[in-house]
């Protein structure tokens, strides 16, 4: 049996396929129009709008390159899959914490030579932001919007508790004295409000040791999470369930609303002090009562005579994935974003401070957040730090969340829980170092290619 009519349709199909394949979006019409740069970014909402405005300026200012901005959810995973599939975007916006794992897995283009050629140098940046973008002696990214962490307190609650609303706690001991004064209990003895709660919102379980003088990694081969300083920090965490009761604390937290809502416990007055970054301004503006009074100060250290102005700094960064089609043009765009005017436009739009050393005089006048200077000062502090540049950081961070949970619910002591983290993370870190030994030869050769 033969199928004569089918043959005709097969031909049609083949022709259509051939036309389709020869005219993929990237290939179609190339040569005449501008070079299209695909830019993936994690932001949505007003943060995306701020970057879009900068992209539009760039596109309008020249006709050779056109940047196509897309908001991409779960960008870390998509970028990994797209890069391994050989179809990465030309520019991607990720978090600085992800840089080591991307770099070490050969997913990024080193920017050293492009930066050198473009005249982008270290002295233009607040030093920590250049450091955050470097790993294993190479530059992998340039920053966009940065953040630092500080103590934010509710002045009204301070006043009500008989505390000076303009004077934040200066040490951990004083923080706890204030905490005792700010605690409110109901008639049945249950907790209605508290001064400070390390579990709220629980985003930085890894780094409490820093305010106690601890380190998470010795910078070489050893994880140092169970050092005496880090254990002391977790003993401070451990004191909460002991002092306030495990179930009482869990019940208190259960009644807290979503972070991004008017029921955020900081805005409803159920927590008087929090550790937060500059973005808190946007949430206060959107969700806190109109008469909400707040202050920003360095989070107190255990011994202010020895250690002060400790903060965690992080940044959103722009990278060029390995295998990007137009790395030179991509860098031109990144360089544009990193020049003073566009950067200030972006940071104003997102209500952040600029990672650049130079700042126009009216930046702070135009800035909607009156407290932005305090966050900037903290980022410049010699005790500002960023999470260790480890490829096992995600695992480390997960383990710390588990350890925090065990201590918080009284299932383990500070020492026990941190010993477990130490053992597990060290093992994984040793594995990663073995991997590095196997592939470092090939990779460093590739990274140093002219």
């Amino acid at each position, binding site marked *: 049996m033969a199928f004569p009519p089918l043959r005709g349709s097969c031909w049609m199909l083949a022709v259509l396929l051939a036309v389709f394949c020869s005219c993929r979006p990237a290939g179609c019409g190339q040569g005449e129009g501008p070079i299209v740069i695909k830019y993936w970014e994690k932001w949505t909402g007003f943060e995306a709008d701020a970057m879009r405005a900068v992209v539009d300026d760039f596109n309008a200012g020249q006709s050779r390159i056109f940047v196509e901005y897309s908001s991409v959810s779960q960008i870390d*995973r998509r970028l*990994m899959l797209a*890069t*391994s599939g050989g179809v990465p975007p030309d520019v991607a916006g990720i978090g600085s914490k992800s840089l080591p*794992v991307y770099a*070490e*897995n*050969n*997913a990024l283009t080193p920017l050293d030579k492009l930066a050198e050629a473009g005249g982008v140098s270290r002295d233009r940046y607040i030093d920590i932001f250049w450091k955050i973008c470097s790993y294993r002696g190479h530059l992998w990214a340039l920053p966009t919007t940065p953040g630092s962490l500080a103590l934010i307190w509710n002045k009204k609650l301070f006043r009500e508790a008989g505390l000076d609303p303009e004077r934040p706690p200066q040490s951990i001991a004083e923080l706890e004295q204030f905490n005792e004064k700010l605690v409110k209990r109901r008639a049945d003895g249950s907790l209605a409000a508290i001064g400070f709660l390390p579990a709220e919102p629980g985003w930085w379980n890894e780094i409490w040791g820093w305010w106690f003088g601890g380190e998470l990694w010795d910078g070489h081969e050893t994880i140092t999470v169970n050092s005496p300083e880090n254990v002391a920090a977790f003993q401070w965490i451990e004191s909460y369930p002991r002092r306030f009761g495990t179930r009482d604390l*869990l*019940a208190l937290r*259960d*009644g807290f609303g979503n972070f991004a809502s008017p029921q955020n416990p900081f805005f409803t007055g159920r927590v008087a002090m929090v550790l937060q970054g500059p973005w808190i301004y946007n949430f206060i503006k959107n969700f806190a009562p109109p008469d909400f009074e707040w202050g920003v100060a360095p989070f107190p250290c255990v011994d202010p005579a020895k250690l002060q102005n400790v903060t965690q700094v992080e940044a959103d960064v722009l990278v060029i994935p*390995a295998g990007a089609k137009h790395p030179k043009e991509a860098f031109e765009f990144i360089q544009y974003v990193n020049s003073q005017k566009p950067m200030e436009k972006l940071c104003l739009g997102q209500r952040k401070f600029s990672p650049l050393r130079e700042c126009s005089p009216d930046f702070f006048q135009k800035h909607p957040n009156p407290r932005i200077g305090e966050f900037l000062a903290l980022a410049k502090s010699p005790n500002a730090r960023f999470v260790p540049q480890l*490829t*096992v950081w*995600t*695992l480390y961070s*997960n383990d710390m*969340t*588990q350890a925090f*949970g*065990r201590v918080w*619910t009284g*299932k383990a002591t500070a020492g026990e829980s941190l010993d477990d983290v130490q053992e*597990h993370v060290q093992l*994984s870190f040793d*594995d990663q170092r*073995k*991997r590095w030994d*196997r*592939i470092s030869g*090939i*990779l460093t050769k590739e990274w140093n290619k002219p």
Partner: protein
Amino acid sequence: MSHGDKRDIRIGLLFISPWILGFLALCVYPLLSSLFYSMCDYSVLSPAVFVGADNYRKMFADAIFWRSVYNTIFFAAFAIPLGLLMSLSLAILLNVDLPGKGMFRTIFFLPSLVPMVCLAVLWQWMLNGDVGLVNNTLKPVFHVVNVLLGTQLSPPNWLQEAQFAKWGVIFTGLWGVGHAVVIYLAGLQGVPRHLYESAEIDGANFWHKTWHITLPVLSPVIYFNSIMGLIGSFQVFAVPYVMTGGGDGPERSLLFMATYLYQNAFDYWNMGYACAIGVALFLLILALTYAATKLSERHIHYEGK
């Protein structure tokens, strides 16, 4: 083989070629390659380096892996029998001749049309310790018990307390038994009426008939559903993943084998180790399915045999 036979085979192969190609490319190749990568240090983006049995050695020494195995077996050990019991009893009840039978069947089937992720989000709120519907229903019960016994019990904070979290996921799973119910119902239509009639003549009641006629005739269907349940339970992922926001739950009580595999592959970039976990999961399911088949052989009655 005649010329015609050969042609028939060629045409036959041509017609099933889409399936064969799909099977080879989408099943056989990933299966074999994951077996290979399980013996490599592989992070997807850098070249895979053969490391022999290193990943397996690491797996045996990894306390968190064993925790995930324990959680998975615990989940399966309760989710499979409870699901079986619930779906079978629902099917038998829905098979009773009652007015509005079709409506009841639809109502019980509807929840299984809810996508996994919605199911997880929905039950996350149902099981919320503070404002959840489940605890709001339980609170009066606990109150009565407390008054009667002088105790101070309160309903658990399901997904926040390690000893209850897995139960929360098990109950959530029971909500989606509709598919199994439909398969049982179909099986129940195949039970010959004359068997019931002759049993009734002999004075059998509902329980006699269920135990001696319905269940034996239904046994191949029960077997099928159990095996599907077993495979599904060991692969549990979406519901706990959504409920914990991609985490492991309190004290890793919701870390299942599939979750740990996913974390290693996509969060920790240890694709080789993730493949090794995948192979372990595959072997575990294979062994249990084989054991289930062997153990149940004597109790399954096939009509045709």
